[in-house]
Every structure is written in C-alpha cells, then in structure tokens.
C-alpha cells in the first residue's frame, strides 16, 4: 500500500504545488497592488484594468514620504520602542512562565485566570482607564509610557506560550544544576533561557510586530511630534478631503519591509519556537 504508483506520487506532488501556488498568489496579490500603487503618481493611482507594472513609475512617493515630517526620525522611534518593549516583555514573561512551569504556589490558579482575562478584554475598552492611569503616573507624552503599556499588553500571551515550552525542558537538567548548588535564578538564567532561544525568538517576533503596528495608544499618549511612531506618521498622510494613496502606500511599504526582513531571517527559529519538538530533536 505504502508503495503506491510513482505516477500517483507525481500527481500528488503536482497537486500540492498547484494548491500552494494558487494560495500564495491570493496571499500576495494585494501586496503587489499596494507595492505597484506606491510607485504611481496621483494621476494614475487606480486604473481599471489594474496595472501591476506602473506605466509611469515614479519614486516621488517614497522621497516625499521619507522627507516629510521627519519620517526617518519616526522610523527610529518605532525601532527603539518596539525593540525595548520586546526585550523587556520577553524577559518579564519568561520569568513569569518559569514560575508557572516549575513551582507550585498559592494563588497560582487565580493568577492564571487573571492573565487569561487580560487576553480576552478588548483593548479599546481599556483605552480611557489606561490613559487616565498613564496621566497619574506622569507617563503622558513619553516613550517610557509607550513601552510600559506595550510590555504589559503582551505579557499574558507570551507567558502562556513560554510556559508550555518551559514545561517540556527535562527537569533532570535542572536537577543536575541543583546538585552543583545552583539556585533558581541561576538555573533560569544559565539553563532555561539559553535552551529556550527559539521560543524567545517567537515571543519576540510576536511582540515586536504588535508594537510596530500599534496606533491608538501611541496616538493617545504622545503629544510631541518628536516622539511619534510610524503608524501616526502614516495616518497624517490621510487628508480630510483627499488622501494621497501613493504616499500612504509608499509609507506603508517602508513600514512593512523591516517586518518582512525580520520574519524571513528568523522564520525557521520562529516555527521551532512554537514547537516543543525543538528540544527533543
């Protein structure tokens, strides 16, 4: 049975590729459209039939987007905020996950349920209470305010993910370290974290993406243009009466590129990180 005919296997293989190619095409067409439009002058933005290769290509949308409103500066702010938030969120959630994975303690279930609640409430509902809190903490108009709340928002999901991973790390490894007199912090730092690199990469990418795209909170607490992040800079290109779509799409393309690069680079680790299998293999 397992042998099957060679012909059948080839047909199967072909079918697999056709399915994948059709699927991938559907996934990618909107981006080709976005990408093509970002090279079109206002005059030729939305033509029917659609032009995937612009007849009158121009780089002006890119130069305009990059030079207006210190776009480069906002880009740097976004990188800074996203990176710092990612590192802190990964560290704090790893610590929490370690506690959940390796210890029995009072209030464990309650804490777990609270984290779960945090995962379920719509962020929109918390906007005003969080904003009033940020004001009490004097975090309005500061990048620290952005980072603190980005970290908090991502803690619950990261903790769940990392906890599942940590539990798969054989206890024997830790026992060996205990024999050598290592305390829990040393074990966490020297054993758990290094072994969990793929999982940390995974939560890192999820967090980075979430921070990179975040818009409403950044709009709400940042007043100073010098402290703006990319999504706000892009929204300014949307006019009340006219939106220059070429400009918006060029700016969006600039914003997407780092994200795709990050994913392409870490894709393998990323998937491994989601899979406990990484350790056994």
């Amino acid at each position, binding site marked *: *049975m397992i042998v099957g005919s060679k012909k059948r296997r080839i047909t199967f293989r072909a079918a*697999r590729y056709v399915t*994948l190619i059709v*699927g991938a095409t559907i*996934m*990618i*067409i*909107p*981006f080709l*459209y976005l990408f093509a439009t970002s090279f079109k002058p206002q005059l030729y933005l*939305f033509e029917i*039939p659609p032009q995937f290769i612009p007849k009158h290509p121009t780089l002006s949308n890119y130069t305009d987007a990059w030079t207006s409103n210190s776009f480069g500066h906002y880009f740097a702010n976004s990188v800074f905020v996203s990176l710092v938030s990612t590192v802190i969120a990964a560290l704090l959630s790893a*610590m*929490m996950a*370690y*506690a959940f*994975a*390796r*210890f*029995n303690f009072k209030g464990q*279930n309650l*804490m*777990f349920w*609270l984290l*779960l609640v*945090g*995962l*379920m*409430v*719509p962020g*929109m*509902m*918390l906007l*005003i*209470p*969080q904003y009033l*809190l940020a004001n009490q903490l004097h975090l309005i108009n500061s990048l620290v305010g952005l980072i*603190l709340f980005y*970290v*908090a*928002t991502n*803690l*619950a999901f990261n903790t769940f*993910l990392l906890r*599942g991973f940590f*539990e798969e790390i054989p206890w024997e490894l830790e*026992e060996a370290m205990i024999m050598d007199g290592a305390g829990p912090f040393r074990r966490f730092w020297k054993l758990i974290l290094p072994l969990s690199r793929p999982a940390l990469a995974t939560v890192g990418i999820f967090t980075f993406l979430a921070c990179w795209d975040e818009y409403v909170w950044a709009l709400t607490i940042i007043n100073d243009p010098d402290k703006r992040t990319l*999504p706000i800079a892009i*929204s300014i290109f949307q006019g009340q009466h006219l939106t220059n779509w070429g400009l918006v*799409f060029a700016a*969006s393309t600039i*914003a997407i590129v780092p*994200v*795709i690069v990050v994913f392409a680079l870490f*894709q393998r680790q990323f*998937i*491994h990180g*989601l899979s*406990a*299998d990484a350790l056994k293999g």
Partner: protein
Amino acid sequence: MLANVPHGPSKPSKAGFVPYLFLAPGFLLFLLTIIYPIFRALQISFYNWGVFPGSPTTFVGLHQYVREMHDPVFWRALENAAVYMVFTVPLQIVFGLSVAMLLVRKIPGRGLFRALFYIPVVTSWVVVSLLFKFLFSTDAGFVNWILHNLLHLSSHNIGWLDTRWPSMITIGILGVWKGVGWSMLIFLAALMGVPDSLTEAAAIDGAGPWRSFFSVTLPSIRLTLSFVTIMLVIGSLNVFTSAFIMTGGGPQQQTEVVLSYMYHQAFQFLDFGYGSALAFTLAIIVFAISFVQMRLFRGGVTRVVR
C-alpha cells in the same frame, strides 16, 4: 478546575517565596496596567460619565446595561460579530491546517511559501483594511474586474460593501486572508511535533492519507487545535479595525460590530458610560464562550502549544 495546574512530578513542592520573586515584576505591572483599568472600565459603565474634568458624572447603576438590552443596534452589532466569528474561525482553521500539512515536509521552496502565507499577518490592520476597501470597491475594484471583466463569472459589478451581508462576508474574507498565516504557523509547529513513526505505523496498518490524518494527526494536535480555536474566537468577536475602516458600520449601522459601535458611542458621542457597558458585555460574552470551550477541550489555552 481546568487542567492548568502545572503537571509533572518533579516540581519542588516547597517553593517558598521564590516563585513570587519571578512573578513579581511582570505580574505587578500586569495588575496595574491591565487589571486595574478593567475595574475602572467596569466602574465607568455604571455612570453617566462626564468626559471633561468638572463636568457632571452621575451614578446610574445598571441603566447602561438595561439600555443596551433595548438597543436594536447593539443586538445587530452582536449578531454581526457572531456571524464574522462563524465565518472566519472555521475557514482559518481549515485553510491554516491544510497549508501547514502541505508545508510540514521538506519540499523545495518551503521557506518561501511559509513566508508568503505569513506576510498578511505581519502587516498592519489599517493598511490591509484600506487595501481591501479598494480591491472590493464596486466600480473600480480589482475583485469585480476579475469576476466580471476577466472571468465573466458575474453579469454585473457586485456591490460588495453596499449592503449588510455582502459587507460582512467581505470583512470576513479579509479576516480569513489575514489570519490563515497565523494558524498555519501554530499548526506547523504542532505538526512538527507529531512523530513520523506514528503516521508511518498507520500507513503500514493500511490507512490511507485521509484516515491517517483523522485517526493519527488530528488527535495528536488536539491541544493545539483547541488553542487556535479559542484564540480565533476571542479575536473574531473583538473584530474592529477592518469593519471600522471598510464600512464604518454603514449603511445605516447595518454592519456595525460591537467594538465599532462602542467606538462611535464613546468617541463620537462622548457616551463613555454606554461605551464601557458595551465593551464590558462583549468581554463577558467572550469570557463565557472561552470558558465553555476550555471545558470542552480540557485546558487548551493553558497548555498552549506542544
């Protein structure tokens, strides 16, 4: 209780204060910035809340919730969110799992395909919602151009975003398109954990690919399946940006979802008390559904992936 009590025989039973040291920084931050605001939001929902400092705020008890029960737009918004959930969750699971099955084995171009399917996940909701609004616009849209001009599948240009159900379907299509990559990724990770020996054994026993899938693969990724389902259900009931940008709740509030309606009430009409009540009701519904699901799946979320 759920199956979330950490398992394994090897845990130190007497941990003392050590776990709390690990938990403290993250959990205190979480309590302060997430849990405390949840209680504030609950509190606001019991008031006719004056937005500006010094403007009158009056306690109205459960009035906002009673008002909600008699508000046809709220019910329609809830119905729309439910329809969105029913449309997007199964499709994301089916497509995500199918693609993951196709990409789990080593084949040429595997990394590229994974990246292509994942790109929609990593782009911002705002950008792709604007993009889809163009793609699905009636007269100059790419989709109608394909269906009508190119393939002649439709005799006229379809008004995708003109009436309630086509709009909800279009918003759902965006949701599925953007979400497939995410579930693909989680399923991929889980499938990599299914030992080849299991499927090989099934094949030797004479199971075809379908039977092998249903009797071996699916049961071994049961926890992942439940995790993905729960996360997708939470995400789909909380749908906001796509609906808000593509139809703005129109025409005549026909395509309002709970959070877009909440946004209109709070930020357009400054009725933050009612807005909070709407959001809180949604949160309770999401919580209840998740609770039931976890019961059914026996602890999916808490085990996350394996």
